[in-house]
């Protein structure tokens, strides 16, 4: 029983990690590096968008990603009774 519980918990955890790391990759390596030139055609105030992602935006998203993970995992810990 506890073994199955642990397995299910781990599976959900891995799913969260994969989704969040996908976002992590898209904002930094995607928007900030690979698609930078295309995004640079769009302007955000004085910023070219690709440049903004590389030097500002990706970092803000990194912070948000960690706090989202903290919230998701605190909930998951409760759901599976691992929050003791």
């Amino acid at each position, binding site marked *: 029983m506890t073994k199955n519980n*642990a397995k299910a*918990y*781990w599976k959900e*955890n891995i799913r969260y*990690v994969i989704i*969040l*790391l996908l976002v*992590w990759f898209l904002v*930094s*390596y995607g928007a*900030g*590096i*690979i698609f*930078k030139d295309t995004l*640079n055609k769009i302007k*955000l*105030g*004085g*910023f*070219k968008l690709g*440049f*903004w992602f*590389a*030097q*500002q935006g*990706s*970092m*803000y998203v*990194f*912070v948000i*990603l*960690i*706090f989202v*993970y*903290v919230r998701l*995992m*605190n909930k998951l*810990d409760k759901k599976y*009774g*691992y*929050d*003791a």
Partner: protein
Amino acid sequence: MMLSIMLAESLGVQNWTYILVGITFTIYIGIAIWSRANSTKEFYVAGAGVSPLANGMATAADWMSAASFISMAGIISFAGYDGAVYLMGWTGGYVLLALLLAPYLRKFGKFTVPDFIGDRYYSKTARLVAVFCALLVSFTYVAGQMRGVGIVFSRFLEVDINTGVIIGMLIVLFYAVLGGMKGITYTQVVQYCILIFAFMVPAIFISIQMTGNPIPQLGFGGELADGSGTYLLDKLDGLSTELGFAEYTEGSKSLIDVFAITLALMVGTAGLPHVIVRFFTVKRVKDARKSAGIALLLIVILYTTAPAVAVFARTNMIETVSNQPYENVPEWFKKWETTELIVFTDKNNDGIIQYVADESKNELVVDRDIMVLANPEIANLPNWVIALVAAGGLAAALSTAAGLLLVISASVSHDLIKKIIKPSISEKGELVAARLSAVGAVCVAGYFGINPPGFVAAVVALAFGLAAASFFPAIILGIFYKRMNKEGAIAGMVVGIVAMLLYMIKYKLGWFDDVLPDKSEWWFGISPEGFGTVAMVLNFIVSIVIMRFTPAPPKDVQEIVEHIRIPSGAGQATH
């Protein structure tokens, strides 16, 4: 009121610096005396009782070194877009830490990174390889910090660099040896406050002067305050191309190299032992996740300001000096000329400063560190702000040095002496050994600070590649791949670190050839700074292939893996 302002003005930069540096050093020593470590658990992991907020602040200070504080904005101001490799590379690693490493290593609940490698891979050889990697990474890194302390002292207090290094050594020695991780943690909390205040105050002042916006992160995307309606970045792009440089927002590195360097820095960050070990100091697994988030938030405050400072400083500098008669230059220009951080050679003898991309016509060489150090003077800020920058630079260098010294001393006293050479050593004996190895480590670091081998500066940036090539894959596979065994992990670490060292020696130091090989010979066009990514991939491949042909790990080790995947019952760190 009037009198106090006059008094403050008459104090001068030098005296302000003595006062502020004196106050901060007194605080560090006070904390050391208050937080003496009485057990190895307190010495190595601060008794695993640090709150997530305190640990987040300590991690941020531990992480942001003299390089982040003094050099990074300057590097970016000369690199433009390419500077993003440092910005994303040195922050994105925290996402990997929070999602892939910190919670599980905290649950594992030991003292050091080699502890995890040694136990998970049930092998003294694995532990030894990990100790070797930890020492290699930490020593290359700490030498640069001690040098940074010396440089700040010499520039602001006009003492000799070596005297500066020795003063720094004595301070670190005092609080690291006495307080261990406990002392280091609480000094780092204070050091974070000092360094972030010292970085933000000039940045906010300059942002208001140039763009009218008090928030630097918004100011550098805003319009100039001169009422011209031109965006600051457009102006800088224009100035750059006029002088023959690449457009500031475009950069000049190849896409694959930018990609590889960013990844090597991110993974390296997540694999640096002095960062990882900070997450052993909190109470519970959930605290480890949370403090990673707080740490990154606190780091990002400085890291999103740095590119703004870079743009302000570069625009300011070009406008102030480019095509101006030498006799009209402001006072700060002459002052920094005496330190040789600004060098003007009037090649065509017209008395006018030509600052252009073309090497043969360029007459001005500017050291990148000046962008942060001279910023308050360039913007005519009061003396106390200039002194504050000195105190901030010292806080940044000292906090990082202390964190690294602890990793070195724990590697020696815990991993080498207690776990391999003399397991029968008593708790008291190990604590003495830990303190003695900290003293030894400070002396070695100080020696390299005073006599920096020519290649130290080049190698510091590569500490990340080394960490990415060795620890990161071994730890990740140890957590996420139950079948991974000692044969695979050891082979992977050895291949990764050897590949990284060889590439570095060939293409960064040039020791294999008479001359440094040209960029065109780089593998896949990847620079030595980015090669950590390739070495990491090699490590993963070798680990998995070797694992396929060797026996699965014993049952109790597989149980360790199942145990660390579940957050509850992290308990206290034990031997």
